[in-house]
């Protein structure tokens, strides 16, 4: 067919004959996706990959910011395995992760179900409940410190005013739960609104059919609502896991890692930027990163399975 086509003439023939310009190459169908992707990849390489590789490098060295780093092999990692403080921080981080995600999902789903119905003042309630998400976490932690202070905090003033005893929410036995409470309070709107958006987008006909078939509310929730929300739940779990492993701000304004609240990110920060033990701090950061990656990878695969079209 092509051999029968008349030969090109004029500007089109000229264009065919010369080499394409850079712009034409970049915007061609073949390369356009790379044109869009490369700036992002370069930025990621500079701001993510380079620091990551540098951290991995330092994690095999001993360096206190003076002189040249000394290669120590796996020493920092071996030390981590026996570092009681690190292991405790790791355990506490997992506790916070589980508590926060369970509560945020449970209460968030409850609120989302509640708010999925129309009620008077719904927009005001929904708007106000978003507020905690809009405040910087560090500011919130300072505010909570003022509210929860044993002697001068607003909470105890209120409790005393109504004749109740003061509460010490910074006791070592419960301080970690207080940190969880602060975190949940701030991030609850996130899971609530994601789930609410999910509920709003569920197909009505399926629920109508279930109602006509006489399915109970509980049955409908268990067999229809929940499975349909699972991909969103997985997204919340993945994102919140990543964020919670790096939880830092609530500690900065309150306990600063004291009273049994030192978490993974705090001990990493303290080692790297307070004691400037860069090698050991880097090893901590790498372990924290690896754990996050592993957790998220497992959950991401689950998410993909959930989202895959069913035959």
């Amino acid at each position: 067919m092509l051999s029968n086509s008349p030969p090109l003439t004029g500007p089109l023939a000229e264009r065919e004959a010369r080499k394409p310009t850079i712009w034409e190459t970049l915007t061609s169908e073949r390369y356009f996706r790379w044109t869009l992707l490369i700036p992002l990849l370069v930025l990621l390489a500079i701001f993510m990959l380079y620091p990551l590789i540098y951290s991995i490098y330092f994690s095999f060295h001993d360096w206190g910011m003076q002189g040249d780093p000394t290669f120590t092999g796996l020493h920092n990692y071996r030390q981590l395995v026996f570092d009681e403080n690190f292991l405790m921080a790791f355990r506490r981080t997992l506790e916070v992760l589980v508590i926060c995600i369970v509560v945020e999902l449970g209460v968030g789903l409850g609120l989302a179900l509640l708010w999925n119905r129309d009620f008077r003042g719904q927009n005001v309630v929904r708007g106000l409940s978003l507020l905690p998400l809009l405040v910087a976490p560090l500011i919130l932690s300072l505010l909570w410190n003022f509210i929860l202070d044993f002697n001068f905090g607003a909470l105890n003033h209120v409790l005393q005013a109504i004749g109740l005893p003061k509460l010490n929410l910074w006791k070592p036995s419960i301080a970690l739960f207080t940190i969880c409470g602060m975190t949940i309070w701030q991030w609850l709107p996130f899971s609530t609104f994601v789930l609410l958006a999910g509920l709003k987008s569920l197909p009505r006909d399926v629920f109508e059919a279930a109602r006509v078939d006489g399915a109970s509310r509980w049955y409908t929730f268990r067999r229809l609502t929940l499975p349909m929300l699972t991909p969103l739940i997985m997204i919340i779990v993945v994102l919140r896991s990543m964020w919670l492993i790096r939880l830092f701000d609530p500690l900065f304004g309150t306990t600063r890692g004291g009273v049994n609240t030192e978490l993974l990110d705090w001990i990493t920060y303290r080692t790297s930027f307070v004691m400037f033990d860069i090698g050991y701090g880097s090893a901590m950061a790498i372990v924290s990163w690896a754990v996050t990656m592993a957790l998220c990878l497992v959950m991401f695969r689950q998410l993909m399975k959930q989202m895959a079209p069913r035959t």
Partner: protein
Amino acid sequence: MKLRSIHAMWGLLLMLGFASRTYAQSNFSLNDVPELKNKRAIHLILETGEAHGKAIPVIEAFTKKTGVPVQVERVASSGVYGKENVELMAGTGHYDVVYVETSWTTEWSDYLFKLKDLANKVDPGKYASLEKDMANMSPSILATGQAYGNQMVLPFYTFDMTMWVRQDVFDDPTEKANFKAKYGYELAAAKTWDQLHDQAAFFTRKKGEMLKGQPLDHDLFGLSMQAGAYQDNDETTARLWSMDADWVTVQKDSSGKITKFVITKKDKEALKAALTEYKGDLQWDSPGALTANFDFVVAQIGNGNAIIAPTIWANCTTWADGILKEKVPGGKIGAYPTPGGHPYTGAWSYGVAKSTKNPEAAYWLVRYLTSYEAGVRMFKEAGLIPGRIDVMETVAKDGPEYPLGMLAKYHINIWKATGANIPNYYYYNTKAGGKVYDNQIYVLAPALTGQKTVDEVVEDLTKQTIDLQNKFDKTASCVEEK
């Protein structure tokens, strides 16, 4: 006779004139700063807070006189080490004038000018001029700003500890009589930890009980301490030093060179005793003490919630007094040495970075910020206590008797009493000071909260101190005495 009287009067006037001239010359002022050719801006850190803000006009006066712009960065004290450490190690020259907590002086000594060398280079009066001014500073505070015998920094204000007592309560006849009846000795500021325990127990009272003949409308605590993971180590230091022990014993040869850092058996036993006592003392403090910093103690004393703060920064006194005057009419604070008589000490100081592009201006700014003129101003206006004897003497003589006069007298006396010990304390001899200091804060906290036993914490700290010391200070090895 008349002529002789006139001669005598002239003689007297001349002498007075000479005397005042000598006094004026001994006080370095802005007029002594020579013309500076290098007008390149210099950069320094000034702590956040209203009190520290009073230094801004002092800095502006320097700029007005010299034409050298000064860029001031306001940073909370807890953030200073991290920010400056990075810039100093990287040699960026970002901070021309370096704000130094004196326990970091030795650690940063490789990155700071020796002031003697710098004075000889940029001061027309050479080192003699600086030395003359330093003669008016507290020798013990100056010693905290030295590294291996070299003066590296000059004190901007000291954070000497003191013990506050509610003086109005201690002077109350009913309280005095009741205390004597119960314990068999007079109620007076505690000189020993045992006396402190008696007083702490005596003053810990429930709402409705009496204080100074009046029923309390809130619970009262005998003590207020800053036992959070922030300054628990400083409170422990005061206890350790009072037992004639230290975190680490510095061994020196006859020439004064450090030969070894040793955590002696005595140091460890003293630390166990100090922590046990500290933990025990918390029974007379508010439960909030476990997350408390100095501001909490200020609030507790200021609001009349506690009677004694055994280990608190003297430079917070005017702050606490301001609150107390408002909240407790007739309330008054007394400042005394911490029990055992060896309060934690040191100073927030200024030195000159080797990497500065304008060492001359940086030197003169350090001189001015730490001068008599600036010191009087900071003390009177901000309550920050300069490490200068001349300022203390002036305020003790001419200033208000309370609280500034009281603080001035306290400092003159405590500097005399503790000066000899300072040069040998571990903090002022180690290059790992910043790291060990911060690590102590976190390692000690579990002993106070009960998460770990005192013995476990002492073992943890011993191991970690040896690791850090050997890692960050190669001048001499650190070992544990077996």
